[in-house]
């Protein structure tokens, strides 16, 4: 089990979601964050005050996946998030010790397997 954390451009977030759904990755948490990467800073002026914006708006994806889903997840994000300019973001893959699904108490791999797949298996 891994936790895939991706910090991406806000304007790519919709494409990334679409790519993830295409890759059958359905459990996604998304948050708006601010960060500092290597991008050239934006300079803004308000009346006489000039400021450098050191923090860029980013969107953070948190995706808990079973091991064989790591590669498709990362590939989907890499493909959809890239514009080729500095500031496209990062993907981190972290080991996960334990996962619980709160509703059922399922653990680990069962906890990150989408419900529809289970239902289809029973049918």
């Amino acid at each position, binding site marked *: 089990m891994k936790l895939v954390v991706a910090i991406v451009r806000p304007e790519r977030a919709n494409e990334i979601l679409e790519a993830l759904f295409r890759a059958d990755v359905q459990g996604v948490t998304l948050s708006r964050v601010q960060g*500092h990467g290597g991008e050239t800073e934006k300079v*803004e002026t308000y009346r006489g005050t000039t400021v450098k914006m050191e923090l860029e708006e980013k969107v953070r994806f948190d995706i808990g996946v079973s091991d064989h889903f790591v590669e498709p997840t990362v590939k989907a994000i890499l493909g959809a998030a890239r514009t080729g300019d500095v500031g496209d973001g990062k993907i981190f893959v972290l080991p996960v010790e334990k996962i619980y699904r709160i509703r059922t108490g399922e653990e680990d791999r069962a906890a990150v397997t989408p419900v529809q797949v289970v239902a289809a298996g029973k049918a």
Partner: protein
Amino acid sequence: MDQPTLVPADTAWMLASTALVLLMTPALAFFYGGLVRSKNALNTMMMSVAALGFVGVAWALLGYSLAFAEGSAFLGGLQNALLRGVGLAPQGTIPQLLFMAYQGTFAIITAALVSGAIVERMRFSAYLVFITLWSLVVYAPIAHWVWGGGFLAKMGALDFAGGTVVHINAATAAFVAAVVIGQRKDYARQAILPHNVPFTLLGAGLLWFGWFGFNAGSALAANGLAALAFVNTMIAPAGTLVVWTVLDLVRSGKATAVGAATGIVVGLVAITPAAGFIGPRAALVLGMVAAFPSYYALVYRARTRLDDSLDVVAAHGLGGTVGALLTGVFASKAWNGTVDGLLRGNGGQLGIQAVGVLASIVYSGVATYVLFKVIGLVIPLKVDRRDEGLGLDVSQHGEEAYADGEGAILILQRTEADAPAAVPALAAAAAEGGRS
């Protein structure tokens, strides 16, 4: 004819009307600004605000003369260029200088209306050049045709406050602008949602308020005609709003706020050419009828490849056309004292109205197209894709509508060569590429 004399009551009302119409342009900034994404809010609002300056100056220097000085059937002369000869002598019953200012507010809002079709992607410098030249090359001649003694005026085309001059003209230019500049990169690929619907409602409310000056002021006097136009400006949009809401309820079961704001504007547009020519019951019918074409055009347009982003064609083009044609149907001598329409046996008026509409569409379409092509030779009309992704507020204006200040580092103006940099640690990190 009597020697023209100044009438204080008329002058007072026109002073107020001029201020009311000027307010419509910042109102439009809110109306349009609420409908775009937050990263383009300032850019969209600035497109209206800039018109106050650039078109305002162009109007005073040259536009007024081209529109209202005596000239040919197609264009005014240069006698009043640089405001020469425009003084306090009466034009009708108000000072000519005031008449110039009142008409200037119309030129400003008309140019700003066009921006609705090209928001979120047009280069701001190119836009400034465009609206300035457009107000002289396209707006001023059409204003001359209808109000400055040009050929449409001589034919007897009725346009009380600018259905053809303002709305059909702006909508045609907007259509051409959307086609020439092209779609936003996200159009039909992503959901593009309004970022602040309350702004849009505020804008619609302020537009309605200002529109009393637009329509009732077009009587150019504080008299019964002004009262008629004023009341029609209240009743017709109310009718449009009711029909629009019902159409919303029937179609989706929900009465939308963006729909209400749009319905109000469509009703205001439709009553504009008719305001002083038709009775109040006819105005109500006109307002209600006007809802249908615009409503269905809006629904249809979103499924096409035409990225007329804020639906200037559907709202102003169709609303203006319906209003201009129905003026020829409902015009009533009993109310306006001059001319009857189709319903009172003067069918020819409808034909004259149609000629007015067509002439505006053809001239505005062709002239706007040529103007864009010429400007495009000098300045790229569109921002590049990267800047569009970042948003035009930052890329065109160096500001954000909703900056929270986090991560903002003050750039100190150095007074001495050895003054320390603002935050050395962060600057050093940035120099190394900022990677941890």
